[in-house]
């Protein structure tokens, strides 16, 4: 006799603060089946894109996801450049690569923290996110934003990396290596973490192929695939780095892959900073011809794919996007079933399902260097705005 109890995770995830619904069918502690419901976040971006002109679309696709807010525009501009058959200035390619790798760094640190939180290790969570801050600060220094960098543009990038910013990036890189060593020691060698993650949520190589998983999820299952190496874009073919692959397919392997990938990212950024040539950063592109193009980018979570078709007018007639989590999340159907509830929770999180969250504003008086708005001032400000809107509505 079996008595199945449904344990719901969602429709609003208690931790990831993102609408997705996992229905776990359990017998005691064991998960015997799982329903995965996604699609709560459908915002019609592809359709919206058809009503924007080509220069507005990077801004739009940047908002697909806060964490991958560089990968999507990057893939889009790759598609556009494939379509228009143009050569992008060398310096722009280097800048794009640097931003992409900085994004990978902060995204992997974010995941590491969340994974810690999922298994109840809040110290790892807090530490990981603390050390993520310098990366975000550098991104803010270079691009003006912690997320949604607004760097990508068809034919180049919008902002140059200034000479005076480069030492800061180098310092951040150098400071991050001891931190990664610390995490490698504290997280990867911790016997209790190993007990919680080794042999848990295994996705075999065969199933990984069947479910077409991408990115670190695939690489942890023994599939040596990485768009950066297989179909180089940016300047990935001009720098030395390795694809990190693990065979085990369990959560520990995914953890190891992500931690080791951060070392590779640092290597890539350092080489880019060294080799970056001087020159223009933008090709003043006027017209987009009719045709179609594809762009692939290795986002932190895996391959991000954009397809654009143009009929020679000002906006695409079709823009197709495939984000990595769309491929990775369904693989939980095999990885999470047969686990206990505790393991299923971390297994569901191990593919690093994507979500957006960050928002931060500091207003500083330049004369006194004092912060002007604290939390309460912002609340006041937003209330004032609400009153204004209300006034317009009634008046």
């Amino acid at each position, binding site marked *: 006799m079996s008595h199945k*109890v*449904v*344990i719901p995770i969602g429709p609003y995830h*208690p*931790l990831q603060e993102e609408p997705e619904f996992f229905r776990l069918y*359990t017998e*005691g*502690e064991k998960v015997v089946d799982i329903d995965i419901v996604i699609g709560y976040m459908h915002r019609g971006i592809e359709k919206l894109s058809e009503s924007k002109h080509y220069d507005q679309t990077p801004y739009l696709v940047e908002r697909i996801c806060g964490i991958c807010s560089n990968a999507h525009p990057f893939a889009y501009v790759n598609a556009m450049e494939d379509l228009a058959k143009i050569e992008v200035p060398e310096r722009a390619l280097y800048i794009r690569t640097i931003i992409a790798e900085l994004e990978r760094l902060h995204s992997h640190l974010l995941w590491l923290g969340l994974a*810690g*939180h*999922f*298994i*109840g*290790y*809040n*110290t*790892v*969570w*807090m*530490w990981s996110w*603390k050390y993520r801050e310098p990366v975000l600060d550098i991104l803010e220094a270079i691009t003006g934003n912690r997320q949604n960098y607004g760097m990508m543009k068809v034919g180049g990038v919008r902002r140059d990396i200034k000479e005076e910013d480069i030492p800061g990036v180098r310092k951040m890189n150098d400071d991050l290596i001891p931190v990664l060593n610390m995490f490698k020691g504290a997280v990867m060698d*911790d016997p*209790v*973490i190993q*007990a*919680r993650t080794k042999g848990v949520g295994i996705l075999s190589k065969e199933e990984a192929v069947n479910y077409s998983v991408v990115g670190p999820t695939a690489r942890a299952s023994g599939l040596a695939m990485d768009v950066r190496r297989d179909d180089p874009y940016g300047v990935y073919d001009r720098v030395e780095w390795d694809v990190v692959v693990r065979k085990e397919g369990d959560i520990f392997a995914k953890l190891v892959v992500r931690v080791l990938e951060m070392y590779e990212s640092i290597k890539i950024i350092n080489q880019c900073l060294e080799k970056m040539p001087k020159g223009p950063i933008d090709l003043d592109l006027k017209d987009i011809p009719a045709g179609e193009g594809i762009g692939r980018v290795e986002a932190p979570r895996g391959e991000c794919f954009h397809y654009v078709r143009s009929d020679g007018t000002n906006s695409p007639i079709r823009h197709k996007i495939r984000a990595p989590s769309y491929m990775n999340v369904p693989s939980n159907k095999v990885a999470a079933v047969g686990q*206990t*509830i*505790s*393991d299923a*929770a971390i297994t569901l999180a191990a593919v690093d399902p994507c979500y957006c969250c960050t928002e931060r504003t500091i207003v500083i008086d330049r004369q006194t260097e004092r912060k002007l708005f604290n939390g309460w001032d912002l609340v006041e400000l937003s209330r004032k705005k609400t009153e204004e809107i209300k006034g317009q509505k009634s008046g």
Partner: protein
Amino acid sequence: MKDLFYYLIFPGFLFTGALGIFASWFDRKITARVQWRKGPPLLQPLYDLIKLLGKELILPANSSLWTFLVFPIVGLAASALASSIIWLAFLFPEKGFVGDVFVVIYLMGLPAISLIVASFASANPLASQGASREIKLLLSYELPFILAALVVLIKAQSIKLGGLIFYQAVNGLGIGSFSGAIAFIVALLCSQAKLGLVPFDMAEAETEIMAGAYIEFSGPLLAVFRLTKFMMLVAAPLFLVGLFLGNVAAGPGAFLLLILKYLAVVLLTVLIRNTNPRLRIDQAMKFFWGPVTLLAAVAVTLALFGK
């Protein structure tokens, strides 16, 4: 009349509650500092309690109402009673009654049992998941906990808390011997589980089953559970102090020393909680029934041989 004062005011309900609120702040502050955060102000746990008391109490439609309402209070009463018995043993070791050690051990088991019953009564699948985990946990840590206590009882040849404290005053601390040290480690791990702290917080496991056993409790009832936790955060470490680090709390200096010892044990607990991930329930059971019980048995054997 005097007993009522002991139970309700000092060192029982009121005093233990206040100390528990302080201990909870201590826990949160240390945790925050370990995690590079600032931490809450001193009275934050109290504010939390007051706020919860003012919130609406939502009664689940399918719950077994009386069980749902009464058992949280049973747990609270038991933890307060356990704490006052332990405190009285420190203050007046010559008083007390024969076998109060066992009474305290049973009383400290009651909050867990009341949580189990109350959460089963709430008729929520997540709550029953949490409750069944709590049952498994209770079954696994009680045996080594009692064995660890037994080590000291054998050494002191007494089953009175006051007797244990007198014995330690004469013969040195319970933790001082080899078997005592082992038993202390065992008892510390068990009290970690008793308090429901990481790595043994699977009954609430907010990131898996969303507060599990507590999920249906709101407002004043949740405040009762919170207060029970605060009191247990006094009772359990204090019991360890009584078993292994005891001193008679006569005079302000000795009382202060006692509080310091107590805070040291809480600090150990907090550090364990901040340097470990949550175990799976089957791993926790294996851990307690395997190495921990074995260790406790070794300690008992050593104690019997006088080591």
